[in-house]
């Protein structure tokens, strides 16, 4: 049984539903991320787990017991706030030991624990400094140490890296992962940055408009997206809209303005449904020969090219698709042969293409 269980949890603010019937299980010791665009309800879920918001309906279980009616100060969770919320009037050590102070643990024990944690976050000797004397990354680590000091079973982190600059962010990613490994605490991590979610997590839940779209390992999410939202939100994806003309054997054939394509039927749609087929830019190749080999083939015109060093992006006129189509290929030394306005043929394989029902708008 999972350590944190959300059972049909919903949260309404007036008429607005911020979290919509979310059910999910998070295992002990897992690094679990919620990934979603701004305003999709990530913070609200975290606040429900930590007890600051009471869900309108549904129940949260932690380590097997229902959290209903249990306040944030009595839950075995610790939350790292989006803005860190370090206490500005206390020293670094006092911040870290605050959770012990309120449990009336003696000064010496507190100091010892603070020193231990300072060592863990590589800030030994910083205990007597003022919070304002720390840099952004140091504050970040102090916030983590403060949360770990109460020895929580679950650590909740709300976009903890968003205030840092790029370099520091990347540095902190590995540091966070290390801390999680060392302590073995379950991490529930919130981010709208897919790079973070993908590199750090054991599992990721993709969220949109209060709902969970898909849960899985980073590979599953990236390679086998199961909803149009996941497909287009995580990584780059090309898409062709059309109508399903046959659906069998787990594969579907879809008629699009660019041609008739075959792909994996991801959601069990039926013949005649409005659908879209998704294919990653790096899964497309330029087809030299005229033979098809069961591949999906279409032709288009090069509208522009981006040279990025190790690889090259080709952009094709969107004549037959909703959006511009991009093709991403390794720089093999002969990409120079493409010209703007050149007519080319593109091939992609059905097993990498994913067909799913899409009657609405796809973000």
């Amino acid at each position, binding site marked *: 049984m999972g350590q944190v269980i959300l059972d049909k949890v919903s949260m309404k603010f007036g008429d607005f539903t911020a979290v919509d019937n979310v059910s999910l299980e998070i295992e002990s010791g897992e690094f679990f991320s919620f990934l979603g665009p701004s305003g999709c309800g990530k913070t609200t879920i975290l606040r429900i787990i930590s007890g600051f918001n009471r869900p309108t309906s549904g129940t949260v279980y932690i380590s097997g017991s229902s959290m209903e009616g249990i306040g944030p100060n009595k839950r075995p969770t610790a939350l790292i706030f989006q*803005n860190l919320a370090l206490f500005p*009037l206390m020293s670094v050590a006092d911040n870290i030991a*605050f*959770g012990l102070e*309120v449990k009336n643990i003696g000064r010496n024990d507190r100091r010892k624990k603070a020193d231990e944690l300072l060592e863990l976050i590589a800030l030994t000797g910083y205990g007597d400094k003022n919070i*304002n004397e720390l840099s952004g990354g140091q504050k970040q680590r102090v916030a983590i140490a403060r949360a770990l000091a*109460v020895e929580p079973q679950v650590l909740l982190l709300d976009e903890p890296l968003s205030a840092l600059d790029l370099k520091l962010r990347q540095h902190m990613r590995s540091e966070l992962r290390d801390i999680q490994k060392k302590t073995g605490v379950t991490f529930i991590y919130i981010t709208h940055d897919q790079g973070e979610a993908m590199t750090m997590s054991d599992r990721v839940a993709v969220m949109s408009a209060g709902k969970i779209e898909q849960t899985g390992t980073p590979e599953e999410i990236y390679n086998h997206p199961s909803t149009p939202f996941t497909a287009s939100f995580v990584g780059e994806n090309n898409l062709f809209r059309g109508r399903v003309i046959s659906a069998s054997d787990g594969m579907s054939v879809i008629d699009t303005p660019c041609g008739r394509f075959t792909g994996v039927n991801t959601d069990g749609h039926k013949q005649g449904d409005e659908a879209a087929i998704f294919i990653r830019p790096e899964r497309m190749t330029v087809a030299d020969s005229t033979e098809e080999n069961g591949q999906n083939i279409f032709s288009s015109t090069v509208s522009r090219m981006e040279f990025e060093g190790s690889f090259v992006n080709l952009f094709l006129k969107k004549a037959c698709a909703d959006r511009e189509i991009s093709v991403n290929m390794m720089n093999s030394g002969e990409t120079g042969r493409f010209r703007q306005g050149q007519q080319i043929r593109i091939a992609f394989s059905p097993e990498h293409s994913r067909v799913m029902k899409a009657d609405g708008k796809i973000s």
Partner: protein
Amino acid sequence: MRSSKNILNIFLTGYMVLFFLYLFTPLMFMTAAAFNSSSFPTFVPWQGATLSWFETLFKDRILWGSVLNSVIIGAGVIALAVPTGLAGAMLLTSRGIRGRGFLYALMVSPILTPGVILGISTLIFWDNIGVPGGIFLTIIGQTAYISSFCMLMFMARLQRFDRTLEEAAMDLGATHKQVFRKITLPFLRPAIYSAVLIAFLQSFENYNTTLFVIGAETTMTIRIASMVRLGITPEINALAVLFILFTILAAVLYEARRRDEARRAEAAKEAEERESDTVQNLRLDMQTD
């Protein structure tokens, strides 16, 4: 264009000089008269310098008794109005309060109500329960409006408060009371000091409300007013001199503190700049790692 602006500035500066003269000349006359041996408080004609009026002042038992009353009332008002004002501010800065605008208007209305009205209504109310005018009633009457002043000060501070600090503390296991004692109150400390100071000054100053509820007792302000109306002697001037000296002293102290704070803010800013250097260094460290 330029010259017209200059003329304007000269005009404005002249105006300011006149304005300050207007403010301070009466106070200077009052001060000068305290040292004139004339038994009427004036400095023309000058009848020789004397400190005897200060002596009279220090020997004035009734006056010092009334000062003591004022201090007692001030302490009582602080004890009631500061916590009440804090409660009001906490109420109004909470989310999801229905009719906040109306409540706010209600809670600042005592400031906008003439003091005599507060005095009269307090007098009538307590007279009905059989409590006559006196020190207690004065404390009650003044608290009604001084609480509003305190509330405004606390609100200004609370609006700058980062609520996630409270949540963080609670998340770490603190009870509501611990959060209040260890996080909210320390943040409010400067506002508490100024609220105490303002509450005391307002109470000490008050005349209009006190007049109706003081009963047979007397406060310093009431005493001065009756001295002024029935037979003025330069003793009052001597008192005024003490007042002015005290005020100037307080003003100087305040200014010194303000400058000190400004300097500290400057230092903090420099530290921040240094911090961004540190981040720079950290980044270099990482790159060399």
